[in-house]
């Protein structure tokens, strides 16, 4: 397995960033990523990202919440310790709606949050990218592009990034 290195290029505008990405993709590099202080419109298409699984996670969790909410109330109030309130109909009781709804929301919300953390593999305070001092601007005001290449291609790709308009090119150090 030949060692992979990551090369970073800083671009002055979104158009230049996307142009560089498309050129790199045309020359066979697909392990690309952008870094920006705010979400870039259209980056999903340029990077050819698959659809995010987050909506399915949220939907499934909401369903689990609702179903378990109904089952919980039914088992606790009608089976395990039946509470007969004025002989009103028991199953399904309209009085279950609030708790069922809240549980659906609670599960959906928490699984979105923790699902995102799992997708990002957070917490991850260390990332090799943070070794590059100039990369700090990625969360402030700069647009960066990263491309993973084989070790022997580093210099050619660096030159190409510059040719494609990079104001600055950095090589990410190997993981210590």
């Amino acid at each position: 397995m030949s060692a992979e290195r990551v090369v970073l290029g800083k671009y002055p505008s979104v158009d230049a960033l996307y142009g560089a990405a498309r050129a790199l993709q045309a020359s066979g590099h697909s392990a690309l990523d952008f870094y920006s202080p705010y979400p870039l419109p259209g980056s999903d298409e340029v990077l050819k990202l698959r659809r995010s699984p987050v909506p399915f996670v949220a939907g499934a969790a909401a369903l689990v919440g609702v179903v378990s909410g109904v089952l919980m109330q039914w088992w606790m109030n009608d089976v395990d310790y039946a509470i007969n309130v004025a002989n009103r109909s028991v199953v399904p009781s309209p009085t279950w709606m609030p708790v069922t709804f809240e549980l659906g929301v609670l599960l959906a919300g928490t699984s979105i949050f923790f699902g995102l953390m799992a997708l990002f593999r957070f917490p991850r305070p260390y990332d090799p990218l943070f070794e590059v001092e100039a990369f700090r601007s990625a969360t402030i005001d700069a647009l960066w592009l990263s491309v993973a290449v084989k070790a022997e291609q580093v210099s050619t790709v660096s030159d190409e990034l510059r040719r494609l308009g990079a104001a600055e090119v950095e090589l990410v150090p190997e993981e210590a």
Partner: protein
Amino acid sequence: MSALFKPSANFIARFSLVAVASVLGGGLLGLWGYFRTPYAQGLQEEIVQPVLFDHRHHVVDDLIDCRYCHFNVERGASAGVPSTEMCLNCHSQIWNKSPKLEPVRRSYFTGAPIEWNRVHQLPDFTYFNHSIHVGKGIGCATCHGRVDEMAAITKVASLQMSWCLACHRNPAPNLRPKDQITSMTWQPPADPAAAQLLASDLMKSYDVNSRVSCTTCHR
């Protein structure tokens, strides 16, 4: 040029999150478990009394029925703790010079009751009546255990609400014929079918029903 955190920070961050979660979760689980231990329920504690009274001797050797001392059990909410005079019914005649009975004599002559230490304490918001339980065929030993084997009385039932409810939901297995109420050794028939037959007979003849309404015990 170096990153703010070392690569090991990733492990530390994840490990500390897992650790915090385990401590919190483990703590809750620990509390949950603690209240289910005999220790938390006060089950293994032998309650020492001001007089060295031994139930084993009185029940087994002397064959005194429970109701001789706990005279109120069939009529009242409380089973009744015997008065000093009750002790002296016998002990004015036998062992009347024993130094071990000195507190009893002192109580008799001064009129100050013996301060027995309470073993079973129900909270005031719980209504409990001995007579209905005894009258419906619940034996002494069912809740108080083998008192005939205890030097000092020890609680054998947690008196937690789930314990009460277990029997209130399904009283049948705990019923016995009323003439066996104070027996320490009565056992239901060994044959399950016969036991079930007896239980359903008793349910019917003593008119025993499941009672789980809140107001049964909290009135």
